[in-house]
């Protein structure tokens, strides 16, 4: 993966596949670290599964017995001296409060830290592919206002107009880009 925004896209696809109705993508930057938290209310995983998810030879895919999504995220984080933590509550053991949380911490001043890249494109791609699920995106940085998008808010305005309409996707792209341009911080 050339940029972290691609890892974020890849990991969030797991949340959608787990049947999440809301997936939160929360980026929090300090002067030294970038924390990426992907939190969903999908079906969750059993403890046994959680222990295996960063093993590349564990996968839910049916086309081949290798799954590299979380292993690649872990590699990207660990090579900056950071970490990946996965916690999950399976729907069988937590029927009212299930879901998965993946948290990756990057030391973004480390020379091996990939750029965050085009995170706006990641968000529009997710909405284009999954217009009926909800996403909350928030990018908080040490200076300037947070960049934020909540599809639930857009849906109350749009009513029955689908979120994957081209005009809506373009609006979302512009809405996020303007928030990034409007603040003093440059995207890392």
């Amino acid at each position, binding site marked *: *993966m050339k940029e972290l925004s*691609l890892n974020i*896209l*890849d990991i969030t*696809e797991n949340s959608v*596949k787990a049947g999440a109705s809301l997936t939160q993508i929360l980026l929090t930057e300090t002067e030294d670290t970038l924390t990426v938290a992907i939190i969903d209310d999908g079906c969750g995983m059993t403890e046994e599964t959680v222990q295996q998810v960063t093993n590349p030879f564990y996968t839910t*895919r049916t*086309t*081949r017995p290798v*799954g*590299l*999504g979380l292993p*690649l995220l872990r590699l990207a984080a660990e090579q900056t001296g950071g970490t990946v933590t996965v916690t999950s509550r399976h729907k069988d053991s937590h029927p009212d409060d299930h879901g998965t949380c993946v948290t990756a911490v990057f030391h973004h001043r480390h020379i091996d830290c990939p750029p965050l890249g*085009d995170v706006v*494109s*990641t968000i*529009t*791609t997710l909405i*284009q*592919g999954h217009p009926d699920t909800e996403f909350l995106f928030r990018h908080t940085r040490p200076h300037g206002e947070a960049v934020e998008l909540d599809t639930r*808010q*857009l849906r109350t*305005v*749009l*009513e*029955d*107009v*689908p979120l994957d*309409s*081209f*005009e*809506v*996707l373009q*609006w979302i792209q*512009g*809405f996020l880009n*303007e928030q990034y341009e*409007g603040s003093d911080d440059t995207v890392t």
Partner: protein
Amino acid sequence: MKSLAELQAIKEKMQGKVTLREGTDEKRVVVGMATCGIAAGARPVLNAFVEQVNAQGLAANITVTQTGCIGICQYEPVVEVFEAGKEKVTYVKMTADKVARVVEEHLKGGKPVAEYTIGNAKV
């Protein structure tokens, strides 16, 4: 500044069009967006299809969707084009630059771009 008022205007403009779009899919463009596809560069390919299909006014007849791993990871980014009554066309090692020709010649013109298909791929 983009505002929710602007989104409201989009909604009002779009509301009449929504029903028109349903059930008229002549062609379906499917982009593989699993880890293998994403790592190989599927995101800009998908976005190029979405943009160009809409820019050319083809959205009423052509849908662009995403799928998981198609199973031929070494050929990613992989794009499949489905059309009722015709054999599926599989494009391999796609790039955003190749999308314009596929849109023009295949989606608009009805003639697959043989050069980009799996049949012509060098391993």
